[in-house]
Protein backbone atom coordinates (compact mmCIF):
# COMPACT_ATOMS: atom_id res chain seq x y z
CA UNK A 1 0.00 0.00 0.00
CA UNK A 2 1.12 3.48 -0.85
CA UNK A 3 -0.01 7.08 -0.66
CA UNK A 4 -0.56 8.09 -4.26
CA UNK A 5 -1.42 11.19 -6.26
CA UNK A 6 -3.08 9.86 -9.38
CA UNK A 7 -4.24 11.71 -12.43
CA UNK A 8 -7.81 11.26 -13.56
CA UNK A 9 -8.04 9.96 -17.12
CA UNK A 10 -11.80 10.21 -17.43
CA UNK A 11 -14.85 10.75 -15.29
CA UNK A 12 -18.06 9.49 -16.85
CA UNK A 13 -21.65 9.64 -15.75
CA UNK A 14 -22.99 6.17 -16.55
CA UNK A 15 -26.40 6.33 -14.93
CA UNK A 16 -28.51 8.38 -12.62
CA UNK A 17 -26.09 9.43 -9.86
CA UNK A 18 -23.78 6.69 -11.07
CA UNK A 19 -20.21 7.45 -12.11
CA UNK A 20 -17.10 5.71 -13.31
CA UNK A 21 -13.78 7.42 -12.66
CA UNK A 22 -10.63 6.15 -14.32
CA UNK A 23 -7.26 6.93 -12.80
CA UNK A 24 -3.70 6.49 -14.04
CA UNK A 25 -1.58 4.52 -11.59
CA UNK A 26 1.08 1.97 -12.52
CA UNK A 27 1.40 1.03 -8.84
CA UNK A 28 -2.25 0.10 -8.43
CA UNK A 29 -2.51 -1.74 -11.72
CA UNK A 30 0.56 -3.75 -10.82
CA UNK A 31 -0.40 -4.63 -7.28
CA UNK A 32 -4.16 -4.63 -6.82
CA UNK A 33 -6.13 -7.88 -6.62
CA UNK A 34 -9.93 -8.21 -6.80
CA UNK A 35 -11.66 -7.25 -3.56
CA UNK A 36 -9.15 -4.60 -2.62
CA UNK A 37 -10.04 -0.95 -2.32
CA UNK A 38 -8.54 2.51 -2.25
CA UNK A 39 -9.19 5.28 0.26
CA UNK A 40 -9.67 8.66 -1.39
CA UNK A 41 -9.41 12.18 0.00
CA UNK A 42 -12.67 13.71 -1.24
CA UNK A 43 -12.11 17.41 -0.64
CA UNK A 44 -9.70 20.13 -1.69
CA UNK A 45 -6.59 20.88 0.29
CA UNK A 46 -7.17 22.81 3.49
CA UNK A 47 -10.84 21.96 3.65
CA UNK A 48 -12.36 19.43 6.01
CA UNK A 49 -15.71 18.55 4.47
CA UNK A 50 -15.83 15.58 4.29
CA UNK A 51 -13.25 15.08 7.01
CA UNK A 52 -12.38 11.43 6.40
CA UNK A 53 -11.23 9.65 3.29
CA UNK A 54 -13.81 7.56 1.43
CA UNK A 55 -13.22 3.92 0.49
CA UNK A 56 -14.01 2.61 -3.01
CA UNK A 57 -13.46 -0.85 -4.45
CA UNK A 58 -11.26 -1.32 -7.44
CA UNK A 59 -13.75 -1.90 -10.19
CA UNK A 60 -11.61 -2.47 -13.25
CA UNK A 61 -7.98 -2.50 -14.25
CA UNK A 62 -6.64 -1.96 -17.74
CA UNK A 63 -3.12 -3.28 -17.55
CA UNK A 64 -2.07 -1.99 -20.97
CA UNK A 65 -2.83 1.60 -20.11
CA UNK A 66 -1.83 1.36 -16.45
CA UNK A 67 -5.20 2.76 -15.46
CA UNK A 68 -7.84 1.48 -13.07
CA UNK A 69 -11.34 2.61 -12.31
CA UNK A 70 -13.85 2.92 -9.54
CA UNK A 71 -17.62 2.90 -9.99
CA UNK A 72 -19.76 4.70 -7.45
CA UNK A 73 -23.11 6.14 -6.57
CA UNK A 74 -23.33 9.72 -5.38
CA UNK A 75 -24.52 9.59 -1.79
CA UNK A 76 -23.16 12.59 0.07
CA UNK A 77 -20.45 15.24 -0.02
CA UNK A 78 -17.58 12.86 -0.70
CA UNK A 79 -19.03 11.17 -3.75
CA UNK A 80 -20.43 14.49 -4.94
CA UNK A 81 -16.91 15.92 -4.91
CA UNK A 82 -15.59 12.98 -6.91
CA UNK A 83 -18.36 13.21 -9.48
CA UNK A 84 -17.35 16.81 -10.25
CA UNK A 85 -13.71 16.07 -11.01
CA UNK A 86 -12.40 16.32 -14.54
CA UNK A 87 -9.78 14.59 -16.61
CA UNK A 88 -6.30 15.82 -15.63
CA UNK A 89 -7.36 16.59 -12.07
CA UNK A 90 -5.24 14.80 -9.51
CA UNK A 91 -6.67 12.82 -6.61
CA UNK A 92 -4.96 11.74 -3.43
CA UNK A 93 -5.57 8.16 -2.39
CA UNK A 94 -4.11 5.26 -0.44
CA UNK A 95 -4.07 1.75 -1.84
CA UNK A 96 -4.41 -0.99 -2.61
CA UNK A 97 -5.96 -1.80 0.76
CA UNK A 98 -7.62 -4.85 2.30
CA UNK A 99 -7.22 -8.54 1.63
CA UNK A 100 -8.87 -9.37 -1.71
CA UNK A 101 -8.30 -12.72 -3.32
CA UNK A 102 -5.06 -14.54 -3.85
CA UNK A 103 -5.26 -15.74 -7.45
CA UNK A 104 -2.42 -18.21 -7.03
CA UNK A 105 -4.26 -20.07 -4.33
CA UNK A 106 -7.44 -20.54 -6.33
CA UNK A 107 -8.00 -24.11 -7.38
CA UNK A 108 -11.61 -24.36 -8.44
CA UNK A 109 -12.61 -23.86 -12.06
CA UNK A 110 -16.15 -22.59 -11.65
CA UNK A 111 -17.14 -19.28 -10.14
CA UNK A 112 -20.43 -17.68 -9.25
CA UNK A 113 -20.44 -13.93 -8.64
CA UNK A 114 -23.54 -12.45 -7.01
CA UNK A 115 -23.89 -8.69 -7.05
CA UNK A 116 -26.57 -6.45 -5.65
CA UNK A 117 -26.72 -2.84 -6.86
CA UNK A 118 -23.38 -1.04 -6.74
CA UNK A 119 -21.97 -4.33 -5.38
CA UNK A 120 -21.33 -5.34 -8.98
CA UNK A 121 -18.49 -2.77 -9.07
CA UNK A 122 -15.79 -4.88 -7.36
CA UNK A 123 -17.17 -8.16 -8.75
CA UNK A 124 -16.52 -7.00 -12.29
CA UNK A 125 -12.80 -6.93 -11.45
CA UNK A 126 -13.16 -10.48 -10.06
CA UNK A 127 -14.77 -11.61 -13.31
CA UNK A 128 -12.08 -10.07 -15.46
CA UNK A 129 -9.21 -11.57 -13.49
CA UNK A 130 -10.82 -15.01 -13.26
CA UNK A 131 -11.48 -15.06 -17.00
CA UNK A 132 -7.85 -14.21 -17.62
CA UNK A 133 -7.05 -17.37 -15.68
CA UNK A 134 -9.42 -19.29 -17.98
CA UNK A 135 -11.99 -19.90 -15.29
CA UNK A 136 -15.68 -20.41 -15.91
CA UNK A 137 -17.59 -17.46 -14.47
CA UNK A 138 -21.32 -16.94 -14.01
CA UNK A 139 -22.49 -13.47 -13.00
CA UNK A 140 -25.81 -13.04 -11.20
CA UNK A 141 -26.84 -9.46 -10.55
CA UNK A 142 -29.87 -7.83 -8.96
CA UNK A 143 -30.94 -4.21 -9.18
CA UNK A 144 -33.77 -2.00 -8.03
CA UNK A 145 -34.47 -0.54 -11.45
CA UNK A 146 -32.85 0.18 -14.78
CA UNK A 147 -30.04 2.40 -13.57
CA UNK A 148 -27.32 -0.16 -14.31
CA UNK A 149 -28.46 -0.96 -17.85
CA UNK A 150 -24.96 -0.39 -19.20
CA UNK A 151 -23.78 -3.37 -17.19
CA UNK A 152 -25.13 -5.88 -19.74
CA UNK A 153 -22.80 -4.50 -22.35
CA UNK A 154 -19.86 -4.79 -20.00
CA UNK A 155 -20.65 -8.41 -19.30
CA UNK A 156 -21.21 -9.18 -22.95
CA UNK A 157 -17.82 -7.79 -23.77
CA UNK A 158 -16.39 -10.26 -21.25
CA UNK A 159 -18.33 -13.05 -23.01
CA UNK A 160 -19.59 -14.72 -19.84
CA UNK A 161 -22.92 -16.13 -18.80
CA UNK A 162 -25.03 -13.90 -16.66
CA UNK A 163 -28.49 -13.41 -15.29
CA UNK A 164 -29.95 -10.08 -14.30
CA UNK A 165 -33.01 -9.32 -12.20
CA UNK A 166 -34.51 -6.05 -11.17
CA UNK A 167 -37.19 -5.36 -8.62
CA UNK A 168 -39.29 -3.28 -10.99
CA UNK A 169 -38.52 -5.30 -14.11
CA UNK A 170 -36.79 -2.44 -15.91
CA UNK A 171 -33.57 -4.40 -16.24
CA UNK A 172 -33.44 -8.16 -16.95
CA UNK A 173 -36.16 -10.30 -15.45
CA UNK A 174 -38.50 -8.95 -12.83
CA UNK A 175 -37.77 -10.19 -9.33
CA UNK A 176 -35.06 -10.63 -6.74
CA UNK A 177 -31.70 -12.07 -7.65
CA UNK A 178 -31.77 -14.00 -4.36
CA UNK A 179 -34.87 -15.85 -5.55
CA UNK A 180 -33.03 -16.83 -8.71
CA UNK A 181 -30.11 -18.13 -6.63
CA UNK A 182 -32.47 -20.03 -4.36
CA UNK A 183 -34.14 -21.73 -7.32
CA UNK A 184 -30.91 -22.60 -9.10
CA UNK A 185 -28.69 -23.21 -6.11
CA UNK A 186 -28.07 -26.87 -6.88
CA UNK A 187 -26.43 -25.93 -10.19
CA UNK A 188 -23.83 -23.90 -8.34
CA UNK A 189 -23.04 -26.28 -5.52
CA UNK A 190 -19.50 -26.91 -6.65
CA UNK A 191 -18.76 -23.30 -7.55
CA UNK A 192 -16.63 -20.85 -5.60
CA UNK A 193 -19.02 -18.06 -4.72
CA UNK A 194 -18.26 -14.36 -4.20
CA UNK A 195 -20.96 -11.85 -3.28
CA UNK A 196 -21.17 -8.11 -2.90
CA UNK A 197 -24.33 -6.26 -2.04
CA UNK A 198 -26.44 -4.78 0.72
CA UNK A 199 -26.95 -6.38 4.11
CA UNK A 200 -30.47 -7.52 3.25
CA UNK A 201 -29.10 -9.54 0.35
CA UNK A 202 -26.47 -11.10 2.61
CA UNK A 203 -29.07 -12.15 5.13
CA UNK A 204 -31.12 -13.86 2.40
CA UNK A 205 -28.04 -15.56 0.96
CA UNK A 206 -26.89 -16.76 4.38
CA UNK A 207 -30.20 -18.59 4.74
CA UNK A 208 -30.01 -20.13 1.30
CA UNK A 209 -26.39 -21.25 1.62
CA UNK A 210 -26.72 -22.46 5.20
CA UNK A 211 -29.44 -24.94 4.34
CA UNK A 212 -27.29 -26.39 1.58
CA UNK A 213 -24.06 -26.16 3.55
CA UNK A 214 -22.46 -24.04 0.85
CA UNK A 215 -19.58 -21.72 1.65
CA UNK A 216 -19.40 -18.31 0.07
CA UNK A 217 -17.23 -15.23 0.44
CA UNK A 218 -18.62 -11.74 0.67
CA UNK A 219 -17.28 -8.20 0.53
CA UNK A 220 -18.34 -6.09 3.50
CA UNK A 221 -18.60 -2.37 4.14
CA UNK A 222 -18.18 -0.38 7.29
CA UNK A 223 -17.51 3.28 7.90
CA UNK A 224 -13.75 3.69 8.05
CA UNK A 225 -11.34 6.15 9.60
CA UNK A 226 -7.76 4.97 9.03
CA UNK A 227 -8.34 2.29 6.37
CA UNK A 228 -5.11 0.51 7.38
CA UNK A 229 -6.05 -1.44 10.49
CA UNK A 230 -4.90 1.09 13.06
CA UNK A 231 -8.02 2.54 14.63
CA UNK A 232 -10.28 -0.52 15.08
CA UNK A 233 -13.19 1.63 13.99
CA UNK A 234 -14.45 -0.48 11.10
CA UNK A 235 -15.05 -3.72 12.92
CA UNK A 236 -17.84 -6.21 12.27
CA UNK A 237 -18.96 -9.12 14.37
CA UNK A 238 -18.02 -12.62 13.22
CA UNK A 239 -18.60 -16.04 14.70
CA UNK A 240 -15.64 -17.43 16.58
CA UNK A 241 -15.25 -20.84 18.12
CA UNK A 242 -13.46 -19.68 21.24
CA UNK A 243 -15.44 -16.68 22.41
CA UNK A 244 -18.67 -17.05 20.53
CA UNK A 245 -17.85 -14.01 18.47
CA UNK A 246 -15.00 -11.72 17.57
CA UNK A 247 -14.63 -8.24 16.08
CA UNK A 248 -12.64 -8.08 12.85
CA UNK A 249 -11.53 -4.98 10.94
CA UNK A 250 -13.17 -4.68 7.55
CA UNK A 251 -10.25 -2.62 6.25
CA UNK A 252 -7.45 -5.00 7.15
CA UNK A 253 -8.88 -8.43 7.98
CA UNK A 254 -11.38 -7.89 5.13
CA UNK A 255 -13.24 -6.62 3.23
CA UNK A 256 -13.55 -10.24 2.00
CA UNK A 257 -14.86 -12.61 4.67
CA UNK A 258 -16.71 -15.91 4.90
CA UNK A 259 -20.35 -14.96 4.52
CA UNK A 260 -21.44 -17.72 6.91
CA UNK A 261 -19.39 -16.26 9.73
CA UNK A 262 -20.85 -12.76 9.63
CA UNK A 263 -23.20 -11.94 12.51
CA UNK A 264 -25.92 -9.44 11.58
CA UNK A 265 -27.65 -7.94 14.56
CA UNK A 266 -31.42 -7.54 14.30
Amino acid at each position, binding site marked *: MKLIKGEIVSNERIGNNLYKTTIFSPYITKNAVPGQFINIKCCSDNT*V*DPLLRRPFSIHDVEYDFKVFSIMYEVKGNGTHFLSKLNAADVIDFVGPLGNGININKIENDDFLLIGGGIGIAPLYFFAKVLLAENKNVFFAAGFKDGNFLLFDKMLERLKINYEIYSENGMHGSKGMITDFIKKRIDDFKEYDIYCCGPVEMYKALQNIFCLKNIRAKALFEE*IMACGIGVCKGCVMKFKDNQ*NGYIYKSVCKDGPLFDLSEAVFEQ
Partner: protein
Amino acid sequence: MNSNDNPGISVKLGSIRLKNPIVMCSGTFSSGIEYNNFYDVSMLGAITTKSFSLKPREGNKPPRLCETSAGLLNSIGLQNEGIDFFIYEHLPFIKRERFNTILSMLGSDVNEFSDLAVKVRNIEENLIAVELNLSCPNIEKGGMSLGLIPEEVENVTATVRKILNIPVIVKLSPNIENLPEITLRAKNGGAEAVSLINTVVGMAIDINTFKPKLGNVTGGLSGPAIKPIALAKIFNLHKEKILPIIGMGGIFSWEDAIEFILAGSSAVGLGTVNFVDLQAGKKILDGIIDFMNNKNILNIGDIIGKVKAG
Protein backbone atom coordinates in the same frame (compact mmCIF):
# COMPACT_ATOMS: atom_id res chain seq x y z
CA MET B 1 15.40 20.42 7.20
CA ASN B 2 16.36 17.18 8.92
CA SER B 3 15.08 17.54 12.44
CA ASN B 4 17.94 15.49 13.85
CA ASP B 5 20.30 18.25 12.81
CA ASN B 6 18.20 20.87 14.54
CA PRO B 7 18.71 21.13 18.29
CA GLY B 8 16.39 24.17 18.40
CA ILE B 9 13.44 21.90 17.78
CA SER B 10 13.98 19.60 20.77
CA VAL B 11 11.79 20.01 23.82
CA LYS B 12 11.86 19.02 27.45
CA LEU B 13 8.87 18.05 29.56
CA GLY B 14 10.20 17.42 33.03
CA SER B 15 12.85 14.79 32.53
CA ILE B 16 11.33 13.75 29.22
CA ARG B 17 13.40 14.99 26.30
CA LEU B 18 11.94 14.75 22.80
CA LYS B 19 14.02 15.47 19.72
CA ASN B 20 11.06 17.40 18.37
CA PRO B 21 7.61 18.32 19.67
CA ILE B 22 5.62 15.97 17.41
CA VAL B 23 3.91 13.24 19.40
CA MET B 24 1.42 10.77 17.96
CA CYS B 25 -1.74 10.45 20.03
CA SER B 26 -2.77 7.21 21.59
CA GLY B 27 -5.23 5.11 19.60
CA THR B 28 -4.70 6.84 16.29
CA PHE B 29 -1.28 5.47 15.29
CA SER B 30 -1.30 1.96 16.76
CA SER B 31 2.39 1.39 17.59
CA GLY B 32 3.57 3.14 14.42
CA ILE B 33 4.29 0.01 12.38
CA GLU B 34 1.58 0.56 9.76
CA TYR B 35 2.48 4.22 9.30
CA ASN B 36 6.11 3.31 8.78
CA ASN B 37 4.96 2.27 5.30
CA PHE B 38 4.33 5.90 4.51
CA TYR B 39 7.35 7.62 6.07
CA ASP B 40 10.10 6.92 8.52
CA VAL B 41 8.20 7.40 11.75
CA SER B 42 11.35 7.16 13.85
CA MET B 43 11.73 10.85 12.97
CA LEU B 44 8.86 11.68 15.31
CA GLY B 45 9.39 13.12 18.76
CA ALA B 46 7.37 10.24 20.14
CA ILE B 47 4.70 7.73 19.24
CA THR B 48 2.13 7.04 21.91
CA THR B 49 0.87 3.51 21.47
CA LYS B 50 -2.78 2.68 21.62
CA SER B 51 -3.88 2.08 25.19
CA PHE B 52 -3.02 -1.44 26.33
CA SER B 53 -4.70 -3.20 29.22
CA LEU B 54 -3.56 -6.26 31.14
CA LYS B 55 -5.84 -8.63 29.25
CA PRO B 56 -7.20 -8.21 25.73
CA ARG B 57 -10.34 -6.06 25.47
CA GLU B 58 -12.88 -6.67 22.77
CA GLY B 59 -14.07 -3.09 22.67
CA ASN B 60 -17.54 -1.72 22.05
CA LYS B 61 -20.33 -2.87 19.81
CA PRO B 62 -20.18 -1.46 16.26
CA PRO B 63 -20.83 0.88 14.59
CA ARG B 64 -17.94 2.63 16.23
CA LEU B 65 -17.39 5.60 13.96
CA CYS B 66 -19.47 8.47 12.75
CA GLU B 67 -18.39 11.58 10.96
CA THR B 68 -19.79 14.93 12.10
CA SER B 69 -19.11 18.46 10.86
CA ALA B 70 -15.32 18.74 10.96
CA GLY B 71 -15.31 16.02 13.59
CA LEU B 72 -15.11 12.31 14.16
CA LEU B 73 -17.11 10.48 16.81
CA ASN B 74 -15.64 7.19 17.93
CA SER B 75 -16.62 4.58 20.45
CA ILE B 76 -13.84 2.06 19.93
CA GLY B 77 -13.96 1.24 23.60
CA LEU B 78 -10.24 0.61 23.75
CA GLN B 79 -10.21 -2.67 21.85
CA ASN B 80 -6.69 -4.00 22.27
CA GLU B 81 -4.85 -7.32 22.32
CA GLY B 82 -3.42 -6.84 25.79
CA ILE B 83 0.03 -5.80 27.00
CA ASP B 84 1.66 -9.16 26.20
CA PHE B 85 0.77 -8.73 22.56
CA PHE B 86 2.51 -5.36 22.58
CA ILE B 87 5.57 -6.83 24.24
CA TYR B 88 5.90 -9.83 21.95
CA GLU B 89 4.50 -8.58 18.66
CA HIS B 90 5.18 -4.85 18.47
CA LEU B 91 8.22 -4.28 20.64
CA PRO B 92 10.75 -6.20 18.51
CA PHE B 93 9.83 -4.06 15.50
CA ILE B 94 9.91 -0.88 17.56
CA LYS B 95 13.36 -1.73 18.90
CA ARG B 96 14.74 -2.54 15.50
CA GLU B 97 13.38 0.61 13.90
CA ARG B 98 14.21 2.78 16.93
CA PHE B 99 10.80 4.35 17.36
CA ASN B 100 10.53 6.77 20.24
CA THR B 101 7.73 5.14 22.13
CA ILE B 102 5.41 6.25 24.89
CA LEU B 103 3.35 3.30 26.07
CA SER B 104 -0.26 4.14 26.90
CA MET B 105 -1.55 2.09 29.82
CA LEU B 106 -5.15 1.44 30.69
CA GLY B 107 -6.46 -0.12 33.85
CA SER B 108 -9.86 -0.30 35.42
CA ASP B 109 -8.46 0.29 38.89
CA VAL B 110 -5.20 0.87 40.68
CA ASN B 111 -4.52 -2.88 40.87
CA GLU B 112 -4.69 -3.35 37.12
CA PHE B 113 -2.40 -0.37 36.66
CA SER B 114 -0.02 -1.88 39.17
CA ASP B 115 0.00 -5.30 37.48
CA LEU B 116 0.49 -3.62 34.12
CA ALA B 117 3.41 -1.60 35.45
CA VAL B 118 5.10 -4.75 36.74
CA LYS B 119 4.99 -6.18 33.22
CA VAL B 120 6.18 -2.93 31.69
CA ARG B 121 9.15 -2.74 34.04
CA ASN B 122 10.84 -5.53 32.09
CA ILE B 123 10.79 -3.55 28.89
CA GLU B 124 10.98 -0.01 30.16
CA GLU B 125 14.43 0.64 28.72
CA ASN B 126 12.74 0.62 25.29
CA LEU B 127 10.29 3.35 26.23
CA ILE B 128 10.58 7.11 26.61
CA ALA B 129 7.72 7.22 29.07
CA VAL B 130 4.37 5.71 29.91
CA GLU B 131 1.07 7.53 29.60
CA LEU B 132 -1.79 6.68 31.93
CA ASN B 133 -5.11 6.87 30.12
CA LEU B 134 -7.43 8.21 32.79
CA SER B 135 -9.72 9.96 30.39
CA CYS B 136 -11.41 7.70 27.85
CA PRO B 137 -15.09 8.61 27.61
CA ASN B 138 -15.90 5.27 25.98
CA ILE B 139 -15.70 2.75 28.77
CA GLU B 140 -17.68 2.28 31.91
CA LYS B 141 -15.11 1.17 34.38
CA GLY B 142 -11.64 2.70 34.74
CA GLY B 143 -10.39 5.23 32.25
CA MET B 144 -12.65 8.23 32.52
CA SER B 145 -14.17 7.44 35.89
CA LEU B 146 -10.79 7.08 37.59
CA GLY B 147 -9.73 10.35 36.03
CA LEU B 148 -12.65 12.15 37.65
CA ILE B 149 -11.55 11.45 41.20
CA PRO B 150 -8.59 13.53 42.37
CA GLU B 151 -7.44 11.00 44.96
CA GLU B 152 -7.52 8.16 42.45
CA VAL B 153 -5.44 10.15 39.96
CA GLU B 154 -2.78 10.70 42.58
CA ASN B 155 -2.99 7.13 43.80
CA VAL B 156 -2.72 5.52 40.37
CA THR B 157 0.09 7.84 39.30
CA ALA B 158 2.08 7.24 42.46
CA THR B 159 1.62 3.48 42.19
CA VAL B 160 2.90 3.32 38.63
CA ARG B 161 5.65 5.81 39.40
CA LYS B 162 6.99 3.62 42.18
CA ILE B 163 7.18 0.52 40.02
CA LEU B 164 8.76 2.14 36.95
CA ASN B 165 11.99 4.05 36.45
CA ILE B 166 10.77 5.96 33.41
CA PRO B 167 8.70 9.16 33.37
CA VAL B 168 4.93 9.04 33.76
CA ILE B 169 2.49 11.18 31.77
CA VAL B 170 -1.19 11.44 32.68
CA LYS B 171 -3.80 11.83 29.93
CA LEU B 172 -6.61 14.17 30.92
CA SER B 173 -10.18 14.56 29.85
CA PRO B 174 -11.79 17.79 28.65
CA ASN B 175 -15.08 16.61 30.11
CA ILE B 176 -14.24 17.71 33.62
CA GLU B 177 -14.12 21.12 35.26
CA ASN B 178 -11.32 20.79 37.76
CA LEU B 179 -8.36 20.28 35.45
CA PRO B 180 -5.93 22.23 37.63
CA GLU B 181 -6.81 20.14 40.68
CA ILE B 182 -6.47 16.87 38.77
CA THR B 183 -3.17 18.03 37.29
CA LEU B 184 -1.87 18.93 40.71
CA ARG B 185 -2.78 15.46 41.92
CA ALA B 186 -1.01 13.91 38.97
CA LYS B 187 2.04 15.98 39.86
CA ASN B 188 1.85 14.94 43.49
CA GLY B 189 1.74 11.34 42.32
CA GLY B 190 4.95 11.92 40.40
CA ALA B 191 3.76 12.62 36.85
CA GLU B 192 6.11 14.76 34.77
CA ALA B 193 3.61 15.92 32.15
CA VAL B 194 -0.03 15.77 31.16
CA SER B 195 -1.60 15.04 27.78
CA LEU B 196 -4.65 17.16 27.04
CA ILE B 197 -7.29 16.77 25.60
CA ASN B 198 -8.82 13.38 25.15
CA THR B 199 -12.05 13.31 23.12
CA VAL B 200 -15.16 15.28 24.08
CA VAL B 201 -18.34 13.34 24.83
CA GLY B 202 -20.67 13.51 21.85
CA MET B 203 -23.53 11.77 20.08
CA ALA B 204 -25.29 11.46 16.75
CA ILE B 205 -28.65 9.95 15.82
CA ASP B 206 -29.89 8.33 12.62
CA ILE B 207 -33.22 10.03 11.95
CA ASN B 208 -34.44 7.18 9.77
CA THR B 209 -33.96 4.37 12.24
CA PHE B 210 -34.16 6.52 15.40
CA LYS B 211 -31.02 4.69 16.56
CA PRO B 212 -27.82 6.30 17.79
CA LYS B 213 -25.20 6.23 15.06
CA LEU B 214 -22.76 4.61 17.47
CA GLY B 215 -23.42 1.17 18.90
CA ASN B 216 -22.33 2.50 22.28
CA VAL B 217 -24.85 5.40 22.08
CA THR B 218 -22.35 8.15 22.98
CA GLY B 219 -18.73 8.45 21.89
CA GLY B 220 -15.76 10.75 21.86
CA LEU B 221 -15.46 13.69 19.48
CA SER B 222 -12.08 14.45 17.90
CA GLY B 223 -10.82 16.46 14.95
CA PRO B 224 -10.88 20.13 13.89
CA ALA B 225 -14.30 20.68 15.48
CA ILE B 226 -12.79 20.47 18.98
CA LYS B 227 -9.67 22.52 18.28
CA PRO B 228 -10.92 25.77 19.86
CA ILE B 229 -12.05 23.84 22.94
CA ALA B 230 -8.68 22.14 23.30
CA LEU B 231 -6.83 25.43 22.92
CA ALA B 232 -8.88 27.09 25.66
CA LYS B 233 -8.33 24.14 28.03
CA ILE B 234 -4.60 24.14 27.37
CA PHE B 235 -4.30 27.91 27.68
CA ASN B 236 -6.14 27.90 31.00
CA LEU B 237 -4.18 24.97 32.42
CA HIS B 238 -0.85 26.33 31.25
CA LYS B 239 -1.49 29.56 33.16
CA GLU B 240 -1.43 27.53 36.37
CA LYS B 241 2.16 26.38 35.68
CA ILE B 242 1.65 22.96 37.26
CA LEU B 243 3.06 20.53 34.71
CA PRO B 244 4.24 20.70 31.08
CA ILE B 245 1.49 19.88 28.60
CA ILE B 246 1.37 17.68 25.51
CA GLY B 247 -1.39 19.56 23.69
CA MET B 248 -3.77 17.82 21.32
CA GLY B 249 -7.28 18.02 19.93
CA GLY B 250 -7.95 18.75 16.29
CA ILE B 251 -4.45 19.60 15.10
CA PHE B 252 -4.56 19.23 11.31
CA SER B 253 -1.77 21.51 10.09
CA TRP B 254 1.51 23.01 11.18
CA GLU B 255 -0.34 26.29 11.74
CA ASP B 256 -2.59 24.50 14.22
CA ALA B 257 0.48 23.04 15.92
CA ILE B 258 1.96 26.53 16.37
CA GLU B 259 -1.31 27.72 17.91
CA PHE B 260 -1.11 24.88 20.44
CA ILE B 261 2.48 25.71 21.28
CA LEU B 262 1.66 29.39 21.75
CA ALA B 263 -1.24 28.41 24.00
CA GLY B 264 1.13 26.50 26.26
CA SER B 265 1.87 23.07 24.80
CA SER B 266 5.46 21.88 25.17
CA ALA B 267 4.72 19.17 22.62
CA VAL B 268 1.82 18.61 20.22
CA GLY B 269 -0.21 15.46 19.73
CA LEU B 270 -1.51 14.40 16.33
CA GLY B 271 -4.54 12.15 16.35
CA THR B 272 -7.36 12.13 13.83
CA VAL B 273 -5.24 13.91 11.22
CA ASN B 274 -3.27 10.68 10.71
CA PHE B 275 -6.36 9.08 9.18
CA VAL B 276 -6.69 11.82 6.60
CA ASP B 277 -3.07 12.68 5.90
CA LEU B 278 -0.96 9.58 6.34
CA GLN B 279 2.23 11.63 6.38
CA ALA B 280 0.94 14.28 8.75
CA GLY B 281 3.75 13.85 11.28
CA LYS B 282 6.45 14.60 8.76
CA LYS B 283 4.58 17.46 7.10
CA ILE B 284 3.69 19.19 10.33
CA LEU B 285 7.26 18.85 11.62
CA ASP B 286 8.58 20.37 8.39
CA GLY B 287 6.05 23.19 8.65
CA ILE B 288 7.11 24.04 12.19
CA ILE B 289 10.77 24.13 11.20
CA ASP B 290 10.03 26.39 8.22
CA PHE B 291 8.00 28.69 10.45
CA MET B 292 10.86 28.93 12.92
CA ASN B 293 13.29 29.74 10.13
CA ASN B 294 11.01 32.40 8.67
CA LYS B 295 10.37 34.01 12.03
CA ASN B 296 13.93 33.62 13.26
CA ILE B 297 12.93 31.52 16.20
CA LEU B 298 16.05 29.67 17.28
CA ASN B 299 14.47 27.56 19.94
CA ILE B 300 10.96 26.20 19.88
CA GLY B 301 11.01 26.49 23.66
CA ASP B 302 11.09 30.27 23.25
CA ILE B 303 7.49 30.38 22.05
CA ILE B 304 5.83 27.81 24.32
CA GLY B 305 2.93 29.58 26.03
CA LYS B 306 3.91 32.90 24.47
CA VAL B 307 0.46 33.93 23.30
CA LYS B 308 0.09 37.66 24.03
CA ALA B 309 -2.98 37.55 26.20
CA GLY B 310 -3.83 40.17 28.77
